[in-house]
């Protein structure tokens, strides 16, 4: 009886999923709100990448919430795994091939991460992606060198300063007499709005994404370090 009910439920859910999926117009020009965003993004926010404009400018407050959630998760994990004695990682050193390769690749990965979050308003990617890429680079070093250490004090300073930068950039909009996270640098003096190949072209969007990139990178690095140190 219960199995029959479960199968019935699955059939109903599957039917509606397929019905929705068949009606999604993949690859067509978006209508309604999508069209509005694609039309207005370059002139209103100055970002050539519409996704970044939505994440940081139109829905900037949600991004602040996301950053807060990530901060709380990292802090909670650090509190659970906290150890007074200051543990060391017990992983053995990797082989010489892995060690030498990761020593060469590590700066390149960090550079790629920095590129991704600095050019968030021009190319795909942004603060979250860039921060995650940097954390994977540090992870590679953690896995291959037993002696590779990060400075937890510096990491928490970077994290806090980046968070403060984000909030004060948002508050600067209020000081200017507009709304929270208003893109105050766009309009009037600034040129190159919404153009590709111009790094300084989207007001406070790159500044916010740089702050988010530093914050996410520092948080994920501290999180990975905390977790790797608990392995016996």
């Amino acid at each position, binding site marked *: 009886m219960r199995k029959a009910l479960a199968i019935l439920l699955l059939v109903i859910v599957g039917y509606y999923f397929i019905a929705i999926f068949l009606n999604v117009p993949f690859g067509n020009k978006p209508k309604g709100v999508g069209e509005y965003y694609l039309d207005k993004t370059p002139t209103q926010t100055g970002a050539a990448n519409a996704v970044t404009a939505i994440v940081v400018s139109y829905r900037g407050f949600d991004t602040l919430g996301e950053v807060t959630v990530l901060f709380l998760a990292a802090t909670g994990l650090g509190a659970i795994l906290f150890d007074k004695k200051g543990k060391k990682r017990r992983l053995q050193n990797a082989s010489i091939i892995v060690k030498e390769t990761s020593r060469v690749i590590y700066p390149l990965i960090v550079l790629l991460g920095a590129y991704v979050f600095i050019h968030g308003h021009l190319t795909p990617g942004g603060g979250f*992606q860039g921060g*995650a890429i940097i*954390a994977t680079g540090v*992870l590679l070093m953690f896995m291959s060198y037993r002696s590779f250490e990060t400075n937890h004090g510096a990491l928490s300073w970077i994290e806090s300063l980046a968070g403060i930068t984000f909030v004060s950039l948002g508050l600067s909009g209020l000081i200017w007499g507009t709304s929270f996270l208003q893109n105050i640098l766009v309009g009037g003096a600034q040129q190159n709005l919404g153009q590709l190949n111009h790094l300084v072209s989207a007001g406070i969007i790159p500044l916010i994404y740089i702050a988010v990139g530093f914050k996410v990178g520092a948080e994920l690095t501290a999180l990975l370090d905390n977790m790797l140190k608990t392995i016996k």
Partner: protein
Amino acid sequence: MNWVEILTVALCLLLIVAAIFAVYQKDLILAVIGTSAISVALSALYFILQAPDVALTEAAIGVALTTIIFVITIKKTKRYEE
């Protein structure tokens, strides 16, 4: 059929196969490798569907960070499912 459609179908098949592998595998490390294979295929699919931002996120978070966190957890608990 052009090569993009063939690639899309192949990636979807890889997704399904990797998902079934991850569910039925008793060795949890191999199951985690299966989930990261799902992330690789999904990332490529996002790129084909013109969402490179999401593809980057999926590649960085899904392939690297989630996998390593699962591996650490498995290392601290049991490797084989009963």
